């Protein structure tokens, strides 16, 4: 048994310690947001956060994860009460098929938690690890900028000092 902390909740998982996190999330914990895309860490569809950093869950064995904070899209909000990142994607209508989107959201979330004032170039640089085949890139950028603005406004007026210089709060 391995204990994993996912979205703030502790789970006892009965799986081979070599099992990639992705399969435990989807098949054992019923968390569908992270997707299988390549199994090689090349596309980012499986991206989740571990201790605040974006990781490829398809190549991260659960043996490495006890005691660490795992966060998935399900931890960002719900369909009834979506969080800022989710609202950003809904407002920007930033999906076509949407299969890559949860991975995009988690990588963007990790970036904005580390750097709330991330510039558009920062966002592009970070998201370059994640592939989108529908060509939704422009909307994904828009969504992440909207999410950044929503997060800043949620933190109150003092957060004004962190406003990006490139018009991220459009």
């Amino acid at each position, binding site marked *: 048994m391995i204990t994993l902390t996912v979205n703030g909740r502790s789970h006892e998982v009965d799986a081979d310690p070599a099992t990639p996190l992705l399969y435990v999330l989807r098949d054992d914990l019923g968390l*569908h947001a992270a997707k299988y895309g390549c199994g090689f860490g090349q596309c980012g569809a499986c991206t989740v956060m571990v201790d605040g950093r974006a990781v490829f869950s398809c190549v991260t064995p659960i043996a490495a994860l006890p005691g660490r904070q795992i966060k998935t899209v399900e931890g960002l909000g719900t369909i009834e009460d979506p969080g800022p990142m989710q609202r950003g994607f809904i407002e920007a209508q930033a999906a076509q098929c949407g299969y890559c989107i949860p991975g995009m959201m988690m990588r963007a979330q990790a970036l904005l938690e580390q750097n709330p004032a991330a510039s558009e170039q920062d966002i592009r640089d970070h998201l370059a690890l994640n592939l989108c085949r529908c060509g939704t890139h422009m909307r994904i950028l828009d969504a992440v900028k909207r999410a950044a603005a929503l997060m800043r406004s949620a933190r109150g007026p003092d957060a004004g000092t962190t406003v990006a210089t490139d018009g991220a709060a459009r």
Partner: protein
Amino acid sequence: MSPLPHVVSRRSVVAGTGALVLSFALSRHAFAQQPQEPQNVGEEPRKPIPQPGSLKSAPRLDAWIRVDADGRVTVFTGKAELGQGIKTALLQIAAEQLDVPVGALTLVTADTARTANEGYTAGSHSMQDSGTAILHASAQVRALLVAAAAQRLGVPAEQLRTGDGRISAPDGRSLGYGEVVTAEMLQADAAPQSPLKDPARRTVMGRPVRRVDIPAKVTGGEAYVQDMRLDGMVHGRIVRPPSPGARLRDVDAAAVERLPGVLEVVRNGSFLGVVAEREWPCIQAMRRLAALAQWEGHSDFPDAATIDQTVLKLPSQNTDILNTQHMGTPQGRRFEASFTRPYQMHGSIGPSCAIAHATAEGLTVWTHSQGVYPLRGALAEMLQLAPDKIRCVHVEGSGCYGHNGADDVAADAALLALAVPNRPVRVQWMREDEHRYEPYGPAMVAKLSAVLDQGRIVDWTHDVWSNTHSTRPGAAGNLLAALYLQRPFMPPPPVPLPQPEGGGDRNAIPLYKLPRGRVTHHFIPDMPLRVSALRSLGAYVNVFAIETFMDELAAAAGIDPVTFRLNHLEDSRGRDVITTAAEKFGWSRPRDKRPGTGRGFGFARYKNLGAYTAVALDVTVDRDSGAVRVTRVVAAVDSGDAVNPDGIRNQIEGAILQSTSWTLYEAVGFDRETITSRSWADYPILRFDGVPDPVEVHILDRPGQPFLGTGESGQGPTGAAIANAVADATGVRLRDLPLNRERVRTALGPAPAARAG
């Protein structure tokens, strides 16, 4: 290894005993009993009365709209959501014409037990076929409900108003739709005329209604077939051969069947798969099985480096799809150019997936196939089951962009499910399966020539060489697994898709007004690599060729390329999108032409029948690396009646970026024996570092006009605009796709000095 166990014996099916009854309710509609799937909707209308859209093949109103006694309204479509937003657009149409809020409607999409057979969700046809049918059916249903209410209330129908699913009389009395509907009312065939709402009174169509599917997709909902978890579900994986042409000689299946959690190793000829209780152990078992499998033989592929020469040498069936060469003798200067495109892949981010469940009642398959009825027919043939013992239900998958592995994985899942009856089997392809075994967009060559006289084109020829652009199922031999069974199925002989839509020759006839010309489709039956429909089929290559050649001719004539296009175009809607794109881009503004920067233009009307799209863009070309980056894009599109402008914008943006990826990066790698593009490392596509700064899409809305297919219309114009911009930036004309770093670097040569184009 025992033969594949079947749930039903072949004899009982062949004898037609009909002993098995499916547990789900088959539709009472006539279309559900049609055993054969027409390849194109509307080919054989059941009624002589001309009907709009898919009403041709499914004229009954309740094939599209049902109203329950409690007032609930359900909309049915035989088309499928592929990420193009069709669910939302169809709901908008129904909501508008029925006067019911979008949120109060239920939509049922492609399902052989519930919806009309609308063939494939392909060819940018969904709005034309299904959207048009739902538009008319909804308007007629509303009128029938109003007529019934008029009788009940004793008020003339013209005095009744509808809204929110209710019918109101001037005196304040009102009836809900559920109160006036009768069982028989909607069992009628659609009338030839529909009381459509005046476009000026619309409140839902023409508005950027938010997509109904996005909230679940961004909150971890069960949004895809990949996410479905049925009770008792187990997992399957397939061991594909190391080369498509290899055959399985031997495998120690027992060694894998002994692994913990493994339920079954399924071998039938060279089809090899494994079923296990859980997914990760299933993948490990599949890998063990792959290591133990002994294969013999291999494909005999041509040389990838000279695939264009191979394409030209293969036997072809040649058809002039246009010939006006009897019209005089051209005088002037002749120009020629040759264009090539390698094999390119769909490359879905999510590998193909299906779930199949075999029970005593029959087989149910949840699939992201673009055609549930054709898939059902192919599965029935492969499994020797009666079609009515199989139900195929569409569930969304990752974006497909044409015929990818969706149908094949459904066949895989069906074969495994029959080996473990009563357990739903979920099969998802591995990344390398998707890259190596999806059917690619075919390699193509186009040769164009034209005669220019005083700035006008006076003669034009276009020869295009291509394989078929559809090996979609309908037949078992079009399912990958069926090719490897002990008693294999042969693919049916490929046939060219007919004009006016065409396949390899799609958009080969220019929309421009040309006094004399010939366009010839050289259809190549032999397929060195497995190929099928990739978004826009041959239109990408033909528009790339025509629109870059137009630029070459404009340059030779010394005329601005946009002006040159307008000089040869009479179609007023085409002219409007060209001038709109040019204006919004600032084409005629004076520009500061810096080295390594260029701009390009491209235009087409998709299939010469669908949406009009014009694209203007800027590029930068890095001389040292050969890297091209598209920096700014402005597009204009006329999709006819624009039901959801934001949906159209999303599709065009996507088309522009995907076509940018095709045009700059993509070619399937293969050696003489097998496919070498196994992952994204071997098949690079666009990443965020190559994404333009702004992409603007301007919509020319035509309320009340027919819907024009949009989803594929941006592919060709974008590719051409990029090549034209690269030529503008460098003075060098590149005609072989993709315009990747190596090609650009080689073409520019080592010297930094500009060369004349």
